[in-house]
């Protein structure tokens, strides 16, 4: 669990830095696209920051299942865990 909290903290920090949004606005129920004001180009940068922070590549189609930050956290945590199991 502690590892998951650290992952969430890390996500909030780099999203806040990359997309210049106050970290307090990033909450589990918040809408990722709306809070971060993402346009089509920004999703590419999202792939880049996830890769540079967690060393795995997001497939663009994976974003289809991510609406809230909670979805985002769960996706990253599952990818981190599956990578560790592999």
């Amino acid at each position: 669990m502690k590892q998951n909290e650290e992952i969430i903290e890390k996500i909030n920090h780099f999203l806040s830095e990359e997309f210049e949004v106050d970290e307090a606005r990033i909450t589990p129920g918040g809408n990722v696209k709306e809070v971060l004001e993402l346009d089509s180009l920004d999703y590419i940068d999202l792939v880049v920051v996830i890769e540079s922070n967690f060393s795995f590549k997001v497939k663009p189609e994976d974003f289809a299942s991510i609406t809230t930050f909670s979805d985002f956290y769960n996706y990253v945590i599952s990818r981190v865990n599956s990578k560790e199991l592999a």
Partner: protein
Amino acid sequence: MNKRVVITGMGIYSCIGKNPDEVRDSLYVGRSGIILDPVRKEMGYRSGLTGFVERPALKGMLDRRSRIMLPEQGEYAYMATVQALEQAKLDEDYINEHEIGILYGNDSSAKPVIDATDIMREKKDNMLIGSASVFQTLNSTITMNLSTIFKLRGVNFTISAACASGSHAIGLGYHFIKTGLQDCIITGGAQEINCYSMATFDALSAFSIHEENPQTASRPFDRSRDGLIPSGGGATIVLESLESAIKRGATILGEVIGYGFSSNGEHISNPTVSGPVRSLQMAMKDAGMNTADIDYINAHATSTPAGDTSEAKALYTVFGEGTVPVSSTKSMTGHECWMAGASEIVYSLLMMHHGFIAPNINFEHPDEDSVKLNIVKTTAEKDINVFLSNSFGFGGTNSSLIVRKWSK
């Protein structure tokens, strides 16, 4: 019927100042903006000399998306354009309601290309290059970014003509307005300064190696000159039809009255005399000027042995011996390459407005060709009514612009 084309705004971000006031002071006292860059020496440059200006802090001025798509030279161009639009009193509302164009000179974007290539080679996954790179790497990066930032809806393209890019951009803008195609165009030139941008020029041994005293290394027309010094920044000139300027109540800074151009049709890097002569004669004819009408020539002279000699011969051919005052502001700025043709219009306009000719610093001993010219060694108080500015580039592209002080 041809329209008269006037200048209603100017902006400058260069190694001798980050705005027109700072630049005017540097020009007046003959201040050099040249340094020795230790990074270039570590990288194996034959010469580490360069002009230098800090990159502007744009956070707070531009949103994230606009900032990350701007390469270094785009930042300089943005700063110069903000100044020029402010001086021209072209605000957001006016731009939204009118068709304002942009024609800007740029001929490289080396660092973004190299950064993207490094990622491509390391990651083997091109998506990891990110979203901004393509907008930084294209040669048209300045016009695509500034037209987006300022919401411009008129003519929109980049002019790439090596070291004459900025001058041709102004020349083309002049023609677009003169012929009635546009009423107002943002023109100019920008040049990156980073250590990647000039390695290919260094490969040709094009740079001065007088590294012991950087500020005396750029010596246009002096017999001991040994090469140019790369430099950069951004320079913007707002061109407008006289009718438009009067209608808006804009302050008119000058009138573009002549543009001449030519191609040498010979060697890719060796200069000629006949090419610049034709460019000069075409500009003079376009302006309806006689040689006696020109009060000042801002020479292209970059401090290379061959280039300065050819220009001196061309000026002598057209203007005769020792009459018109001549100086090369590259003695202070170094060679601002793609930006130079635009920045040197700004420098000359500043001289025109403040009644002086900036010195060709470091000109101590003429050679057999420059001795025939009236080269200004120290700042001269002088009323300039008409000036001419030369710009020449690789491939033998030549451009000459003539600007007159505004009078009805």
